[in-house]
């Protein structure tokens, strides 16, 4: 995943919350079953359309199953993008891996001693209930601010980073 420095240990690995990918999955499944639903409601369609569907039923089913396969692959592309989007806290630094698309990856890191301020925001009822939000980390480094959006348990993440930051200052 990342190459660790000597004596560096991974403290925490966090991914984005599962809710946005679940909503995306739900829309994919809706799109996937749509052609099959049309077969179910074929009886209520006009007679001319119903005749065409009846006559080319096997062809229609072939196109529907092909469409389902395309949707299946597209969902896994979205899932892979979600899965490779990771935030890592180690004993020396924090690493934000942002998978923009399948062939576009943005990896930024910040040394723990460079952290100046850290806070998190939980916006809305759903975010409060499902425990996800945005974490903002200000630094003295080249990249002034890290923003990690829709991360699970932002409070725990902030706590872990603050604890590691204090330990890095002591060390």
């Amino acid at each position, binding site marked *: 995943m990342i190459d660790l420095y000597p004596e560096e240990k991974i403290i925490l690995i966090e991914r984005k919350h599962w809710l946005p990918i679940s909503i995306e999955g739900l829309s994919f499944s809706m799109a996937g079953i749509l052609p099959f639903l049309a077969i179910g409601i074929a009886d209520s369609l006009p007679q001319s359309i119903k005749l065409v569907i009846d006559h080319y039923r096997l062809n229609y089913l*072939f196109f529907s199953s092909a469409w389902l396969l*395309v949707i299946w692959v597209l969902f896994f592309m979205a899932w*892979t993008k979600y899965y490779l989007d990771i935030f890592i806290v180690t004993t020396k630094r924090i690493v934000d891996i942002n998978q923009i698309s399948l062939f576009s990856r943005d990896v930024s890191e910040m040394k723990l001693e460079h952290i100046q301020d850290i806070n998190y925001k939980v916006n809305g009822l759903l975010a409060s209930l499902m425990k996800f939000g945005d974490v903002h980390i200000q630094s003295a480094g080249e990249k002034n601010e890290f923003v990690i959006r829709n991360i699970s348990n932002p409070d725990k993440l902030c706590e872990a980073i603050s604890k590691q930051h204090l330990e890095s200052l002591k060390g």
Partner: protein
Amino acid sequence: MAYDYGKIISVAMDISSWALLAFFVIATIILNYHWKKYEVDTMRVRATRYVYFTVSAVLITVSAILFYYASL
């Protein structure tokens, strides 16, 4: 001018089945590359790969059977 809908659908099926196969092979190679490169040994990726390939195999088989019977 009367269209031969049967012929049009048959050509569309030929084209779409080849396009589907090409899309599936390319997408699977890309996905597999990512799964292998970044996290090869975790249980979740293994389980995901298993689900992906199993369901894909079922869908491809169903599509192939439908293609065969629709082409008769």
